[in-house]
């Protein structure tokens, strides 16, 4: 099939691309929703973790308040601090709690729990500054966090008005940085880190449930209120919080969409190809149908024409034959009138008798034409010289008075039925005589064309109107006032039986030119057979002998 392309058709590609784009958009939208959901969950869980952591820290520094309420009493009885601290130690592991008396910019320990500080010890520096800054209210103030190895150390201080003037309470804690969650929900699903500062600075890390710090991936920060200060909690998801299926949905849609795009495009392409194929098939069948319709019409026309010719032929045959007996009788009767009546006849009868004889002759010619037209005869080809044939034809059918025939046929050889070609040339020449009428000229010439011999006969009569040029070769069609209308029909039949053609050739000169092709011999093509060769002969009507005859023929 012509025009077949390996490439898929553009509508199929367009639909495929559209579906692919839709699936990409759907994937992006669903992933965004999933991400938002993930983020919301992370925020919620991080906040929850921060809340839990804030509560734990509050429970860590709750004993500071308890210690503060005992501070005045202990100031009078320092050794009783152990007793009071019973409640403290029961709630806090490894506490290091001290009671301090202010001494300028530093503090002196006057009551102590734990092993970190001892009574009489002076605390100064940043811890002292924190403790002094805590002299504000009832809530303990956390100190800066100090990292020591894998642990972090920080404290809580409380001063007046929660304590008597000049007295402060300080609790210091050391905890491992990495803690193991005990199955509590937020800490098992997220990575969590707590910083004792407003920014996630590694130096201020209080604790975390992972050692991989800082936290990777999307993180959520949330403030944690620890005493009077705000610390920072940071969370990141350990795994998908929304569930793996939710996150995969987008990708599933993308893959499914792309697959569907390819399938739809391929299906559509196949359908369109089939449709195109069907259309081409339909077009081909239609063309074939139209062709056979036209063939049928042509055949019908040919058949009608053939039947018409057959009917004409039959009629011509009957008429041609049936005319012969009456013609014989009339011919004989005219002979008897002339032979027996002879001298007794009035001279006035003579022209009438002559006219009767002439017309009977014409009728006999018509009968002959009619018979010739239908007589089926297979050509018996033999090679002969066209010039010799022309000599014979001109002897049998010399030009009437007033007409001159000039011939240039060279020495061309024709391979055809000699009798039929003689008939053909006779008909062409007598046709020219009849076309001319009283006086004029006829030219006959021949030239070799592709192994054939092209014979042209031209007269200077009135010519053939263009509208008659085609059907002039039909039987009983004539443009002349006189004539049977069979001469050229016989010419055509003979030419066609020899595989040639005959036509009226248009030209600029006055008169008609009829051209017929006859089978020749191939090797006679060449410049030696041009029209400019010496004339074959010139025949002048009314002469007993033609003017030049064979004299002009080169031997």
């Amino acid at each position, binding site marked *: 099939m012509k025009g077949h392309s390996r490439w898929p058709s553009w509508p199929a590609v367009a639909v495929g691309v559209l579906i692919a784009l839709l699936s990409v958009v759907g994937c992006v939208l669903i992933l965004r929703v999933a991400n938002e959901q993930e983020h919301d969950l992370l925020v919620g869980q991080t906040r929850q973790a921060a809340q839990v952591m804030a509560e734990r820290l509050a429970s860590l520094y709750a004993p500071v308040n308890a210690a503060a309420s005992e501070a005045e009493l202990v100031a009078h009885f320092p050794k009783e601090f152990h007793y009071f601290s019973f409640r403290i130690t029961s709630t806090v592991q490894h506490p290091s709690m001290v009671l301090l008396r202010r001494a300028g910019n530093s503090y002196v320990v006057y009551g102590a729990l734990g092993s970190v500080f001892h009574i009489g010890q002076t605390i100064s520096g940043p811890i002292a500054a924190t403790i002094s800054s805590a002299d504000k209210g009832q809530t303990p103030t956390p100190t800066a966090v100090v990292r020591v190895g894998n642990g972090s150390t920080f404290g809580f201080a409380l001063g007046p008005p929660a304590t008597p003037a000049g007295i402060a309470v300080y609790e210091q804690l050391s905890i491992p940085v990495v803690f193991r969650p005990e199955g509590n929900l937020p800490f098992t699903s997220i990575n969590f880190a707590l910083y004792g500062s407003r920014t996630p600075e590694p130096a201020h890390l209080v604790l975390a449930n992972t050692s991989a710090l800082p936290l990777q991936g999307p993180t959520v920060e949330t403030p944690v209120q620890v005493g009077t200060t705000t610390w920072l909690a940071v969370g990141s998801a350990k795994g998908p919080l929304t569930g793996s299926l939710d996150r995969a949905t987008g990708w599933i849609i993308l893959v499914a969409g792309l697959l569907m795009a390819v399938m739809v495009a391929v299906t559509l392409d196949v359908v369109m190809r089939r449709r195109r194929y069907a259309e081409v098939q339909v077009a081909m069948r239609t063309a074939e149908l139209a062709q056979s319709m036209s063939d049928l019409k042509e055949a019908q026309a040919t058949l009608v024409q053939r039947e018409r010719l057959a009917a004409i032929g039959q009629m011509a045959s009957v008429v041609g034959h049936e005319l012969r*007996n009456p013609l014989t009788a009339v011919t004989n009767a005219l002979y008897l009138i002339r032979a027996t009546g002879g001298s007794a006849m009035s001279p006035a009868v003579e022209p009438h008798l002559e006219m009767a004889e002439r017309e009977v002759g014409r009728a006999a010619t018509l009968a002959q034409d009619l018979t010739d037209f239908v007589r089926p005869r297979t050509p018996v080809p033999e090679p002969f010289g066209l010039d010799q044939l022309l000599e014979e034809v001109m002897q049998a059918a010399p030009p009437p008075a007033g007409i001159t025939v000039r011939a240039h046929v060279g020495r061309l050889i024709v391979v055809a039925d000699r009798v039929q070609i003689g008939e053909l040339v006779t008909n062409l020449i007598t046709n020219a005589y009849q076309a001319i009428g009283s006086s004029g000229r006829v030219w006959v010439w021949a030239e070799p064309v592709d192994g054939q011999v092209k014979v042209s006969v031209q007269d200077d009569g009135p010519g053939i109107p263009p509208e008659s040029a085609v059907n002039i070769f039909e039987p009983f069609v004539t443009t002349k006032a006189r004539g049977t209308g069979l001469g050229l029909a016989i010419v055509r039949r003979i030419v066609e039986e020899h595989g040639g053609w005959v036509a009226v050739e248009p030209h600029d000169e006055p008169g008609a030119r009829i051209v017929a092709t006859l089978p020749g011999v191939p090797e006679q093509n060449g410049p030696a057979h041009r029209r400019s060769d010496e004339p074959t002969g010139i025949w002048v009507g009314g002469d007993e002998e033609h003017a030049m005859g064979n004299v002009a023929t080169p031997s």
Partner: protein
Amino acid sequence: MTETAGTTPTPERITAPGAGATPAPLPAVLVVEDEEGVRTTIAAILRSAGFVVHEAPDGEIAMTMLDAGVSDVMVLDVRMPNRDGISVLENLPSPPVTILMSAQSIEPDAYGRVRSKVFAHLRKPFRPERLIETVEAAFGGEE
């Protein structure tokens, strides 16, 4: 026209050969033709040329007349009712010198069967001069 140009007849030829000489049996011609107009004019032409002419309108009558030995030369039409010209020739053991006339072309097979018995064949219409020449030639055994 099937014949070629011939010489024009001279008036002398119209008189019978041997007329005025010792009485001799005149040459007799049998014209067998169903078309009356053709038959009578042919007979008249031949009589004017000096022959004795018998006429037969069909093949059967011709056979009867020939049995009686009326003629030496026969001018015979091909297509006739009551036995056509071909049948006449086929059924005569020794026919006279025969000149066949036809308006139609003769079927080649039929013509082939009687060809040896045909002296000449004239296609209608023919020129009367040609008829006279042919009959004369038939009597002379020429051609």
